[in-house]
């Protein structure tokens, strides 16, 4: 269980009304917390972040009837894809606010996803298609490469790599 001061910092990040305010909350915490406390904060934020990712992967009632789009061999409704895109678009800024480069942040999220999936499947007996989809996207890769993707199934790092590649093309 983290110290209360760390929990308070996590909650101020999680309860921020938008991404920009959330990043600012993390930056404020960097000034307030010790190095050890801030390491715990990073770990907590990463775990909450991947759990959110799995929940955002899950279909909702109002997703029904939406056109299905496919990415990395995983099918999503348009609304699911929009949620995952929004989550993904936050990661670069969040990693930066935490003082981590994209490779390190990507690698940490991947490890946390593997841990979460193991926990869901083995400890809680949850074996849902959404968990598999989240694992396929986020839990199966090594550190991010900034090369454009050549094959499917490389996970979160490839998402970030594809994003960076698109930016270079613009």
């Amino acid at each position, binding site marked *: 269980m983290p110290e209360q001061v760390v929990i308070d910092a996590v909650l101020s990040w*999680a309860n921020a*009304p938008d991404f920009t305010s959330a990043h600012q909350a993390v930056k404020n915490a960097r000034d307030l917390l010790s190095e050890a406390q801030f390491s715990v904060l990073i770990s907590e934020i990463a775990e909450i972040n991947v*759990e959110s990712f799995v929940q955002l992967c899950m279909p909702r009632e109002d997703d029904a009837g939406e056109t299905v789009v496919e990415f990395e061999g995983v099918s999503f409704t348009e609304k699911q894809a929009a949620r995952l895109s929004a989550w993904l678009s936050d990661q670069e800024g969040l990693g930066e606010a935490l003082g981590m480069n994209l490779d390190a942040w990507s690698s940490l999220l991947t490890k946390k996803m593997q841990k979460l999936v193991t926990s869901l499947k083995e400890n809680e007996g949850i074996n849902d298609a959404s968990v598999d989809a989240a694992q396929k996207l986020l839990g199966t890769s090594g550190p991010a490469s900034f090369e454009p993707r050549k094959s499917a199934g490389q996970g979160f790092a490839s998402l970030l790599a*594809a994003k960076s*590649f698109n930016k270079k093309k613009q």
Partner: protein
Amino acid sequence: MWGKCHNLAQLLPRKPEKNSTMKFSPIRDTLSAALGVAPMYVGLPPFGLIGTAAKKAFIKENDSFVKKALIGIAAMIASGGAGLIPYIVAAPGQEVQKDVQACRTQVANDRYSQKI
């Protein structure tokens, strides 16, 4: 739009710039400007441009809903209704961001309420 996208990266909303007005989005802003001049096709002045200009000049990505609404209403009054059009076009992306934030809030609150 969505049906043509095969890569999630193509769907990424642009990252908002700190302390800046809303970032340029080619599709949204072209559409917004086109709607701004739409009244000209029926022989009216381009009232909608008042809304487009007000949105660019006074609205930041992370401004409160109330501020956005007040500026939108002011533009609507100034343009006799047509100025509201660009605000309607710009709305969707922020709802998804709020959805992500709400999910994160719930996960965090559940996490610590169970442990305390």
